[in-house]
């Protein structure tokens, strides 16, 4: 399995190959001599934990980063991609997790921005642009009107526009970076069909995903990276899920949720009659020490909004909460932290770590009152606090003085969690704690949550992933359209019950 079957499956030569690619950032070796082969008419799945170097390799392939060492071979000939345009001309195109599109422009303009067909006066040939846009859209089975403004389209249709845009240059290599992350079940099915079409057209596809069911369904080959290193590659037919997981994490991961039975203690937080003019209404629940309380619901059910108001970001229009023995309304995040309620946000980029500040300063930010004396900083205390909590979370970083922006997403998440644990909170709210992070980190987060609850911390976990909710929670509250619609525990906590309550099917046991 570790031998590279380049000659074995024979006749087909790779369209594009990377050899010995090294890319270093200050303090971090993102890629340490990796290789990758992409074959015409085949889907290669690139698998690896967060921080394995997947995003970096995509940027090397699309000309955004220049490798420090190594070769890029197109049809066996060595080449360079000094700019994104050069990569485009070589036929490499990428569909990103969040492609930048322009709301006020038409579908056709979005598809051809930067390389619109010209007429003989050098001006944009609108007719040709519309026709070509229509034909590309048709070829991927998306019959959208090219003249429609983008803002009038659904999220899924926008995604198709992004794909059409990627294909509007005559692509030979299509990179799909977590293409299904924002899609519904039906749309994912359509995407699979699209991938089949692209394969039939002989395009080489690099498919990056965390979802194993997806990889086994559409990929022909696999390549695994770990910590910036190439670990192995091969054919999907010759590998099992367990093999891949072992290669990814370098150990075998128990897929079973590590929820340990914890001693459920006194009520830590009681929320009574919380209301908000637009987002939620009449929220009542009690959270106990040692408990993991799951919050399930569809996107937009108001779960994050409730949590953010408990954390003092938005003020409730009515209601109060009891924390331990104090009844109070939290009016600011500072008050929430004082009361022992902390929140790990879903939007890590914007609300999580303070990029630009070093790791240790991020960790101590809410604990400065404790590490300082009379308002004056004490760096030794800060480093020791940061060291303690980053080690507990198994953070991977070059030094504690390193800018947190240089860390991978999963490690930034660890810094945020370390920051909150260092405040010794009573209640920790985790909003989609494992969204978009790989299987190894996921297990680590789950294990850690379980440990926290066992130590008597009250945990709220907002999650849209049913196995996670069912596997980790002692009790689950389901929200729909800003209201609590159901609560389950024990044997009633089944996937079927949760989904029925979340979508509002009658007959769900309440």
């Amino acid at each position: 399995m570790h031998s590279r079957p380049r000659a074995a499956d024979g006749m087909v030569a790779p369209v594009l190959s990377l050899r010995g690619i090294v890319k270093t950032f200050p303090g971090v070796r993102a890629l340490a001599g990796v290789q990758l082969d992409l074959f015409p008419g085949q889907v290669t799945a690139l698998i690896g934990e967060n921080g394995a170097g997947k995003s970096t390799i995509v940027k090397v392939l699309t000309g955004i980063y220049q490798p420090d060492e190594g070769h890029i071979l197109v049809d066996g000939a060595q080449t360079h991609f000094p700019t994104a345009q050069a990569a485009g001309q070589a036929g490499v195109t990428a569909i990103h997790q969040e492609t930048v599109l322009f709301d006020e422009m038409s579908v056709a303009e979005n598809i051809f921005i930067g390389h619109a067909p010209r007429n003989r006066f050098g001006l944009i040939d609108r007719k040709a642009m519309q026709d070509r846009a229509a034909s590309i859209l048709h070829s991927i089975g998306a019959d959208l009107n090219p003249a429609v403004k983008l803002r009038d389209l659904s999220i899924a249709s926008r995604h198709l526009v992004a794909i059409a845009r990627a294909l509007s240059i005559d692509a030979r290599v299509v990179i799909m970076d977590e293409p299904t992350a924002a899609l519904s079940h039906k749309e994912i099915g359509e995407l699979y069909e699209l991938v089949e079409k692209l394969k039939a057209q002989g395009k080489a596809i690099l498919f990056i995903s965390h979802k194993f069911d997806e990889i086994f369904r559409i990929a022909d080959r696999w390549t695994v990276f770990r910590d910036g290193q190439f670990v192995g590659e091969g054919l999907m037919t010759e590998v099992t899920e367990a093999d891949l997981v072992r290669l990814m994490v370098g150990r075998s991961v128990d897929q079973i949720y590590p929820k340990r039975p914890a001693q459920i203690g006194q009520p830590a937080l009681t929320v009574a009659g919380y209301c908000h003019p637009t987002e939620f209404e009449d929220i009542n629940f009690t959270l106990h020490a040692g408990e993991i309380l799951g919050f399930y619901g569809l996107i937009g059910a108001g779960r994050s909004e409730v949590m953010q108001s408990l954390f003092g970001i938005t003020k409730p229009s009515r209601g109060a909460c009891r924390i331990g023995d104090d009844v109070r309304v939290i009016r600011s995040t500072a008050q929430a932290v004082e009361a022992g309620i902390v929140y790990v946000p879903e939007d890590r980029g914007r609300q999580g770590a303070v990029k630009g500040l070093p790791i240790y300063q991020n960790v101590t930010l809410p604990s400065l009152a404790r590490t300082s004396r009379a308002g004056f900083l004490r760096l030794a205390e800060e480093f020791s606090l940061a060291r303690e909590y980053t080690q507990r979370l198994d953070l991977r970083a070059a030094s504690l003085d390193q800018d947190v922006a240089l860390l991978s997403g999963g490690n930034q998440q660890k810094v945020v969690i370390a920051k909150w644990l260092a405040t010794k909170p009573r209640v920790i709210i985790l909003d989609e704690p494992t969204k978009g992070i790989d299987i190894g980190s996921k297990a680590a987060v789950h294990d850690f949550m379980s440990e926290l609850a066992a130590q008597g911390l009250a945990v709220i976990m907002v999650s849209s992933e049913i196995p996670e909710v069912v596997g980790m929670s002692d009790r689950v509250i389901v929200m729909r359209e800003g209201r609590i619609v159901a609560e389950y525990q024990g044997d009633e906590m089944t996937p079927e019950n949760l989904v029925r309550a979340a979508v509002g099917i009658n007959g769900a046991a309440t």
Partner: protein
Amino acid sequence: MTTATGRHIPDRLTSPASRALKSWEALLLIVAIAIFIVNSMASPYFLDPWNLSDASFNFTEKAMIAFAMAMLVISGEIDLSVGSIMALTSTVMGAAMTAGAGTPTLVALGLGTGLLCGAFNGLLVARFGLPSIVVTIGTMSLFRGISYIVLGDGAYTGYPAGFAWFGQGYVWWVITVELVIFALAALAFGILLHRTNFGRMVYAIGNNATAARFSGIRVDRIRFILFLLTGLMSGIAAICLTSRLGSTRPSIASGFELEVVTIVVLGGVSILGGSGSIIGVVLAALVMGLVTFGLGLLNVPGIVMSIIVGALLIAVIALPRLWSMLSRK
């Protein structure tokens, strides 16, 4: 860099000393020394201690405000009304002086007016969430407008003799009172920004205000305090300038805001917020002071001088960026 299990993460990889050597501030220090040497060769009058002492008035008042402004800019805000705060403060003191107020009252009024103006700016920005650049462009016209209404073409003159100490007095030999205030302010703001929790929070807000708020920081309160401090320093600068000139006209300290911002930016403070240091601002103030003084000794006209200062600013800001672009290629 292999990662072992148990993962011990070192505190630092580069020592603070080696970092300081490669810093912006080190470059500024070299520039300041170079200008000093060039000036002393260009004019025989430059190295005279009394001339240098007189020349320090070129920057002391602006630099006092620049320290507070640096913190404001690091937090991601700006205050363009500082020159106008000085005008209004000076006018209030002038009016009180004609009503017979003594030096202590004048100083108290000066500080109070500065604080009130800062509080007004801070309220609009921190409480009502308005963008600071818009708010302070507004108050820039507002504060100075009040001075014009009160004074018209006139002026307040005849400040008490004791009041002259702030702008004209000497503490020891050639060391002026303003120079001492400048040094104390540099020390106080240096400690506040670099050695206290407050300063740390200012950096956090400047790098990502949303994440700072999500870390339990009272972002609005800190922003308000920063405007208050800028107002206070403008008040102190107004006391010094009024005392030095011995009179108040409504056009007093006009254009100060841009010179203050110039010192701040030259000092290496990112105009986008999030980084910068007080030592950089001190050095930038010295560089500006030395350049204007040197050019003055050579009888360079004021208009040419402003061209040179502008070119210097662009050159010092652009060169490191050009350098890093070229070395990346």
